[in-house]
């Protein structure tokens, strides 16, 4: 059974040959709309997969339902396109059974936070060692344009002609509330930063929750433009670096702590980067501040907001199995069946 249930769950086997992005491109025709942000995310993921030193056969892509969930079909690895919202539960069964596999979940804001909110929460709480790529476009695309659980209040869509009444989730604050051990954010068009975040997600042992702002050019075009356009991103995004002060706008602004609250300050006039908050990925209290920081009051934090070490579910799961087997080396079916109160009839 050792082949089926490796005792060392941390060990994903090394690839025997160098892989390229092309190795991860499947023969399927990609059916996303032309101009969709999903293309960029797929491309970064394929690039990163090839760099990780893992054999292709040990990658498993899991998804639920929605535009983003077509992702597994386009990655030449093992893939499972499952049912709406339940990808985390499938992934949990797979990772617990086969901890040596590198398991990635592609999901959307509706899939992971609406119909699948429950499973997302429990996967994060358990700290199953998988990578979640949440394509957040603040709209339902595949069902042709209804508001989603991350849509802004008052949004007019096909199902909300007078404006949405719902208050939206902040996905990373949600994840943190679910005891996530890794939260990060990037944007479909930030290709380099996205790859860095994906690599960090892979390196993290535990559930890595990555929100990727993604543009749906058909039903919610420009949803993130006010944050991520070239002209404004320097002012409105805060690119985090661990151990570095939180400065943005070309070094002219920073985040400073006033009491328990972060505030935006103009640097100069005696204020320097040294007066700003220093990013500490491991600090859960800082993570709570960062996860709630949103435009326009603040620039939106990008990169790894938080990571901390906690035993993974799959490792603990397999440790218990190993412990039980070690404690009962002579376990057999016969011993189990005949082991209780029995009697003989001659």
């Amino acid at each position, binding site marked *: 059974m050792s082949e089926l249930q490796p005792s060392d769950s941390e060990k994903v086997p090394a690839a025997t040959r160098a892989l390229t992005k092309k190795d991860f491109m499947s023969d399927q025709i990609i059916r996303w709309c032309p101009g969709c942000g999903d293309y960029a995310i797929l491309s970064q993921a394929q690039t990163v997969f090839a760099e990780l030193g893992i054999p292709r*056969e040990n990658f498993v892509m899991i998804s639920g339902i929605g535009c983003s969930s077509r992702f597994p079909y386009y990655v030449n690895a093992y893939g499972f396109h499952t049912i709406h919202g*339940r990808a985390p539960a499938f992934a*949990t*069964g*797979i990772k617990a059974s*086969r901890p040596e596999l590198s398991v990635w979940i592609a999901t959307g804001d509706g899939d992971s936070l609406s119909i699948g909110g429950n499973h997302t929460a429990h996967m994060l709480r358990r700290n199953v060692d998988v990578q979640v790529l949440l394509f957040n476009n603040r709209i339902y695309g595949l069902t042709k344009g209804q508001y989603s659980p991350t849509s802004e209040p008052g949004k007019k869509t096909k199902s909300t002609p007078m404006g949405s009444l719902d208050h939206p989730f902040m996905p990373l604050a949600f994840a943190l509330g679910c005891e996530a051990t890794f939260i990060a954010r990037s944007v479909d068009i930030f290709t380099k930063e996205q790859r860095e975040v994906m690599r960090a997600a892979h390196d993290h042992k535990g559930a890595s929750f990555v929100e990727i702002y993604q543009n749906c050019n058909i039903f919610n075009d420009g949803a993130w433009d006010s944050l991520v356009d070239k002209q404004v991103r320097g002012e409105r995004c805060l690119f985090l670096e661990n151990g570095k002060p939180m400065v943005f706008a070309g070094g002219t602004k920073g985040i400073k702590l006033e009491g328990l609250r972060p505030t935006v300050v103009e640097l100069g006039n005696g204020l320097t980067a040294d007066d700003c908050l220093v990013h500490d990925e491991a600090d859960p209290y800082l993570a709570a501040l960062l996860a709630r920081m949103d435009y326009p009051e603040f620039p939106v934090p990008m990169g790894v907001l938080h990571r901390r070490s906690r035993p993974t579910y799959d490792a603990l799961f397999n440790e218990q199995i190993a412990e039980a087997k070690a404690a009962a080396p002579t376990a057999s*079916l016969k011993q189990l069946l005949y082991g209780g109160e*029995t*009697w003989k*009839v001659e």
Partner: protein
Amino acid sequence: MKPVQSLESVVIRFAGDSGDGMQVIGSQFTNTTALVGNDLATFPDFPAEIRAPAGTLAGVSGFQLHFSSSDIFTPGDAPEVLVAMNPAALKANIRDLKKGGLVVVNAEKFIQREFEKAAITSNPLEDGSLDEWRLVKVDMARLTREAVVGLELGTKEIDRTKNFFALGLCYWLYQRPLETTVRWIEAKFKQPYKEANLRALRAGHAYAETIELFENRYEVPPARLAPGTYRNIMGNQAVSLGLVAAAYKTGLPVFLGSYPITPASDILHQLSAYKAHNVVTFQAEDEIAAVAAAIGASFSGSIGVCTTSGPGMALKAEAIGLAVMTELPLVIINVQRGGPSTGLPTKTEQSDLMQAMYGRNGEAPVAVVAASTPVDCFEMTLEAVRIAVTTMCPVILLTDGYMANGSEPWRLPDVDAIPAIPVKFRTDPVDFQPYRRDPATLVRPWVRPGTPGLEHRIGGIEKQDVTGAVNYEPLNHEHMCKIRAEKIARIQVPDLEVYGDPGDLLVLGWGSTFGAIRSAVDQARSQGVRVGHAHLKYLNPMPANTAEVLRSFRRVLVPEMNLGQLVRILRAEFLLECISLPKIQGQAFKVREILEAIYSTQQNEAAK
């Protein structure tokens, strides 16, 4: 010395408050009786509430045991002995007691305050309402208190031991040895509770011996069972052991994804202790996650299994459809209970047959099998796994609350003689296509992720045959729907066997009605009635000879604990009119009810 009267069989029922420990002494009496060598069958009956208000009818918990010196198939229609720990227990159960039967009551509880809780207006011990039965009044609480004098226990704690007093009393009455229970108490309790329970047990036994309350004591000689090693087993335990056996016989890990639900939870509890046997359990956040994780495990090369009951089945429907579409093995065990909705969580029913057969969106055929007795749960669990891994499909195993919690002696199988279930993962990349099928069975290959060169994608969208690529073409969809149905239809299952007399009247059952039907058929035949019995354990596909067997009888009577679901399926499949005998009361059939239906069917025929 009281005279000892030999009896062939006895039905005894213990009844009391949920907190009175009736299930405990019921199972103790059962274990002791099994070790004495009687054949037996048990029926625990308890409320859905954990502790309904003490003394009320809602809180009454019962345990019925039928033991015999000959073969028996049911826990018995009506008890001959009732032990009632309070007025509510008496009121709830006395109607079932055979006329002339023995009723032993905990007399101290028969006071005004308790009558009010049980909505009784006058004292049944004095108002003549028990005249038809033999009444024995015992001050169990007082006698227990006297027995444990000197132990450091509060009144409440002392009161808790009186169930063992009642058990000791019944052990004397039926000449059962105390040793099994003594051993159990010694292993189970710490001091001073150990000592208190032991003293209560022995006090009950001695009290019965000393006081001239009982006119007789009885013996039920050992049954003439086939030679072998036996243990007592409940259906849920047999399912658990069947899954362990499946892990050994396939060489694969069994992955149980489950969410607690009555009456299936005990399987999760039991299996969670069997990690050393390559059975692992995952208590999921809900019913959907449970099946999803199990399917994920199957995808990764384990045997994915779910245990649930009706409401959980409803929630799993979409995921089961995914396993149909992706053609992955999956075993779903539905321990049926009364429905719809929450229904009767602790009571039995067979009303999920249609749900198992058809309860999914789209054309979503699955294999359906049903166990017929607690012991049969072992074999049918193995069968469910065999079909799932050799056919690459979901298999629903139907049991129910009656057999799940009921018990009977099990002649243990020769472990080495249980056939292996061969499983082969595809590893050869040459000409690999995920949906290329075995031409005879139409089964697609099972590939574990991690196998080089066989990377592929599966999912819930319709796929092209052979390649598995996403495909929406009209004729491909029709082809795939037909091929998924045909694959299930080609599953090999054993023929339907007929017991008893051919040609005239067949009683056809499925599931836990087996015992009541077999007993009724035996009794009718002993009265000269020509009647046969067949029991469907494979419901989809049905045995190849099913139509032939049914047509070889002039009439077919179908008892079911639903409103006639199998009858409807038989009509649809075979254009055959069967006589439906429905019962939907949360209770199993009594032998008498089926016997009466056999007689009335015969009379109707004679009148024609």
